């Protein structure tokens, strides 16, 4: 019994901000600042979502966010698969050194590189462009490391058999390695997509115009502009949070597995 009481209290603490976000997003302007507090709105105002959506170019932010998240994820999958294949099956001079150097870069905090990357992007004249939002994120050392571990576990005999059949390396990678490790690739794709969706600092730096902003940056802007219309700010927050929560509900296993793999191995 005590078990359940602790779990339920913990659950309420965890869920409270989400519940409060949704509840507040459905209140009227007067309910949100009423004292004593209104816990749940009397008449849910679904119209708040329409108003928030129209008060700022959220449609544009949404398109940008989806575009950037999808493209970086596709890019990461390609570069990661190629690199992991090279490390797990191909022989080339300096392989071990390159691999160790790559793994060593995992110790560098991304926050440290932002100053110089910002200068690079400025020099490339990429400020306020999709390239700036996408290109730096097309590779991820951690996922390369992870996928290499998976690729290594595939029996070498499969590769040798394919060689005997005169199957090219590339064909072997696409037709055998990728399908066998489908689950690992799906996990990487989801984690990368979530990371990209929630990114904030980098897109804030490299974009100036409304048109290039992502949802997270748009939301911060909107928070300032909407002032005390907290019901609209909460509706806008829901718009940013809900797609990932839905993704999480449907693909929970992959997400949790991915984080555990990262936690234990990395």
């Amino acid at each position, binding site marked *: 019994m005590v078990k359940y009481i602790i779990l339920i209290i913990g659950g309420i603490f965890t869920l409270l901000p989400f519940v409060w976000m949704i509840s507040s997003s459905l209140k009227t302007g007067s309910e949100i600042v009423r004292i004593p507090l209104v816990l749940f709105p009397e008449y849910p105002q679904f119209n708040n979502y329409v108003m928030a959506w129209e008060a700022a170019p959220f449609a544009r932010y949404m398109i940008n966010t989806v575009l950037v998240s999808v493209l970086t994820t596709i890019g990461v999958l390609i570069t990661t698969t190629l690199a992991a294949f090279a490390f797990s099956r191909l022989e080339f001079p300096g392989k071990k050194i390159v691999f160790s150097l790559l793994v060593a870069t995992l110790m560098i905090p991304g926050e440290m590189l932002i100053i110089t990357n910002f*200068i690079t992007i400025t020099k490339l004249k990429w400020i306020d462009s999709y390239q700036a939002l996408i290109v730096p994120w097309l*590779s991820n050392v951690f996922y390369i490391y992870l996928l290499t571990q998976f690729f290594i576990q595939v029996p070498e005999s499969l590769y040798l058999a394919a060689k005997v059949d005169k199957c090219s390396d590339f064909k072997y990678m696409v037709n055998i390695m990728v399908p066998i490790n489908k689950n690992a690739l799906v996990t990487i794709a989801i984690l990368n997509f979530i990371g990209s969706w929630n990114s904030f600092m980098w897109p804030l730096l490299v974009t100036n115009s409304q048109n290039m902003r992502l949802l997270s940056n748009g939301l911060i802007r909107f928070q300032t502009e909407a002032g005390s219309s907290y019901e609209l700010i909460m509706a806008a927050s829901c718009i940013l949070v809900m797609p990932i929560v839905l993704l999480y509900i449907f693909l929970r296993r992959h997400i949790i597995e991915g984080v555990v793999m990262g936690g234990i191995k990395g």
Partner: protein
Amino acid sequence: MKKSSLKGYLYLMPALIIILVFTAYPLIRVILMSFYEDYSIISGNHNGIGFANYKELFDDKVFLKALRNTGIYVVFVVPCSIVLSLLLAVLLNSKIRLKGFFQALFFLPYVTSVIAIGIVWSWIFNSNYGLLNYILGIFHIEGIPWLNSPDYALWALIIFSIWKSLAFDILIFLAGLQTISPDLYHAARVDSTPKRRVFFKITVPLLSPMITYAFVMGMINAFKVYNEVFSLFNGKAGPANSAITVVYYIYDKFYNSAEYGVAAAGAVVLFAIILGLTMFQMKLRGNKAEK
């Protein structure tokens, strides 16, 4: 095989180019920049090499405050999160109904946008209409100006961060608990060992690698906290910089005051701290592996 000796690099090229341009080169650049004196990014000129930026950094009370805040933050967030999540993970690992549901629920904060949920927390912390002061009011505790007073801003950040970091720690502990052999618990049950003793004599020692890992990761993340601050205080670092963090400081120096050298020096200090913590973590793990 010998023939394809350079083919490997062909496969690595896409990843390597990105990493060279956006990780290796900027790393070297930022280290050099931190030693340039009177550096101008427009002309690329500087007046020689020295420690002026580092001197300025450590003479700056705001930076020292950022370091101090991080210290306070680590002391409260990391142990609180570890104790709470250890308790919850043990419960989640035991025989309970709706196990899957509870596990899913506790992990939810991990995947949600810090920015969006930080704004929600700022509404919860609102001194007039916030949920937290309302709850305190039920217990006849006077409302606290969480976000408007320099005395409380850091505490608001700490509460939010504990909420946010529970998810990861619970997951790591759950994964660790699954590697503990059930035989040990069976044996304890046969001997009818009290539950508390089982927890402290079996669970905690066997989970100690995970606990160390959560501890070091918690410290590393503490030094990188930024989005939480930005969203909670609407782009500021709390009233009178009371909740400033190291990354916030670095970012502010280069973006708002264009003091690139000082920002670079701050970034190198951040790197040194995180490198030190990571090495420490690897050393602990290495020692464990040798045993």
